[in-house]
């Protein structure tokens, strides 16, 4: 099993969720995060003083998935997030390995629990 972690623009959340639902992903955990990357932050103003907000609001999605579906999940995410040829800040996908997954309610574990 793998954990696919992806950082996206907040405005893409709905379309990614729908895209993943359509391909049968049944579990997603989303977190509000702040991202520091190539996309530079914006300038704000406070009582006449400018300052740069370095961290931009992003959403992190974590999707635990069986190995064979990783490819499909990644493609779906890219399809939903790369709009109009892609723009800076579209996000990044990280894949790592999961040793165990357990559904608390039933005690199921392994791929069944995903």
């Amino acid at each position, binding site marked *: 099993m793998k954990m696919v972690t992806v950082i996206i623009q907040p405005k893409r959340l709905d379309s990614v969720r729908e895209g993943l639902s359509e391909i049968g992903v049944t579990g997603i955990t989303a977190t*509000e995060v702040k991202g520091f990357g190539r996309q530079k932050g*914006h300038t*704000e103003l406070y009582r006449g003083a400018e300052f740069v907000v370095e961290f931009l609001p992003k959403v992190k999605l974590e999707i635990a998935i069986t190995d064979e579906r990783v490819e499909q999940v990644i493609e779906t995410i890219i399809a939903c997030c790369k709009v109009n040829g892609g723009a800076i800040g579209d996000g990044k996908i990280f894949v790592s390995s999961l040793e165990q997954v357990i559904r608390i309610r039933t005690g199921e574990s392994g791929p069944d629990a995903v």
Partner: protein
Amino acid sequence: MENQLFELQYAIDTFYFLVMGALVMWMAAGFSMLEAGLVRSKNTAEILTKNIGLFAIACTMYMLYGYDLMYGGGVLLNGISGEGETYSNASDFYFQVVFVATAMSIVSGAVAERMKLFTFFLFAVIFTVFIYPLEGSWTWGGQEVFGLFDLADYGFYDFAGSGIVHMAGASAALAGVLVLGPRKGKYDKKGNSKPMLGANLPLATLGTFILWMGWFGFNGGSVLAMASKESADAVAMVFVNTNAAAAGGVIAALLLAKTWFGKADLTMALNGALAGLVAITAGPDTPSALAATLIGSVGGIIVVFSIVILDRKLKIDDPVGAISVHGVVGLWGLLAVPLTNSDVGFAGQLIGAATIFVWVFGASLALWFALKAIMGIRVSANEEDSGVDISECGMEAYPEFVTK
């Protein structure tokens, strides 16, 4: 002795005007909080800036020329330094100037979350120096409409401004919304309306209570006199009816929401209160308290239907419901007057309403289009995505709170 009596009467009426005016001024805070609570957090600082800015502009422009145009008070108020006949002229100006700000406040909510701030401010300049005062000169000012006809001849009656102030503001707002279009993402490809939640309902509720309180000044002050038994009774009855109508609006809107949607929708309760207030404003002097409650209740029912229809059927995107509350219900307010005031007829009310609407809507539409051509009316799609707080004001309203 005579003279001393007169001085006291003069003092009472002036004092009354000033207190009522201060209550109306307070409505500016009410609109600010209401609107700030009903927009999304990323557009909150901008709407606050808009509200304090428009209030300042309205006060200044009306002083420079608007008051003169509407009531002949003299350019730059040069006529007000002298004493008035039964109260201080300055107190009359003070009371009137906060009305023009109210009319302008109605616009700001409807065009929220997507309009360029300085385009809005420029509109405010013209609206408060010209569009509103000219309309006001035909109604409260007693002038003929473009020298053609006199609304008084048709018996048009609008006690405190359901039409003259509220529907006028809503007409300008409607024109703005039509030129501006809905917020990005408000309607999906199939045309379904997507709710965009107000970020801070306690603030919106506070705003509603402030407006409710301020409305006692708005309607109560419109009796224009206090210092006699007759006028004291009139002012007191206006207070009672204003309160009764607001209460009726809340109850009706809540019950309708509960029946229709299954839940006691707070935003509808707030709109219901305001609708009750707008509904009674054209004639708070004649109904009994029970009749006022009913007039307000009908307002509360109308506003719920109107908001849903505008939003879902007509696809008119009005983030705070200003067009429904002040426009649709404002019209109801005008039409409700003949029900309890036998001196007033439906025809006259309709002619008055049409005159106000045609002028304010038409002139505003032209002005919005002109501003669009000259300086643009809408922020860029990207700016709208990140919120106008950053693009227009450079700052966030709640910089520390993590938002969804």
